[in-house]
């Protein structure tokens, strides 16, 4: 497996792992204060997810680089850039559709807490789609 494919899988696992922990914590918060609690109560799980995802991403990147030290220094070639561009386009599509949905639902009386949670979910989903798109493109070709 090539370095950039390993990196894509590692970052995909990181995004899913970080998001799972975030959802677990938010679920506990919602169990306590409901969906209409103060928006700042989302800050600790949000910071926790960012810190956890950063640490996992660093560990994953180091592990991928150690398994292929020469490749890790090589700049992205045309295939890498094409894969990244296609994956980013898909992620952008997710963000566009998701934002449209969130804006629509906001008119139905979304609380600030729900709005921030929905935006975080949307951004993480877009990242997951991006990394999954890259990993699958490296594995199966396109």
């Amino acid at each position: 497996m090539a370095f950039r494919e390993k990196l894509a899988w590692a970052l995909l696992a990181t995004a899913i792992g970080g998001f799972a922990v975030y959802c677990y914590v938010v679920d506990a918060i919602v169990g306590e204060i409901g969906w209409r609690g103060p928006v700042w109560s989302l800050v600790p799980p949000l910071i926790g997810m960012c810190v956890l995802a950063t640490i996992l991403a660093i560990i994953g990147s180091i592990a991928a680089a150690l398994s292929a030290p020469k490749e890790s220094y090589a700049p992205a070639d045309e295939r890498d850039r094409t894969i990244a561009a296609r994956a980013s386009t898909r992620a952008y599509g997710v963000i566009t559709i998701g934002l449209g949905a969130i804006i629509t639902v906001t008119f139905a009386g979304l609380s600030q807490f729900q709005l921030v949670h929905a935006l975080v979910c949307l951004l993480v989903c877009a990242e997951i789609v991006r990394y999954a798109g890259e990993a699958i493109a490296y594995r199966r070709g396109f």
Partner: protein
Amino acid sequence: MAEARLSNQIRTLRFLAGEMTQAELGEAIGVTRQTIAAIEQGKYSPSLEAAFRIAQVFGKPLEEVFQWEC
């Protein structure tokens, strides 16, 4: 319309070029070994520029390296 597919003779041409490795070919045209492997396996269609560079390395016209199969 039947789906067209880009095939290539890179593996054969590497063999005829003294068992040139994928890494050597990749280095010659400025891509990674993995990209050459993906092109050989038909998992990636190279850019026109990369295709011409590959043909140039083997000293062959483009149509002898890449074929468009309908």
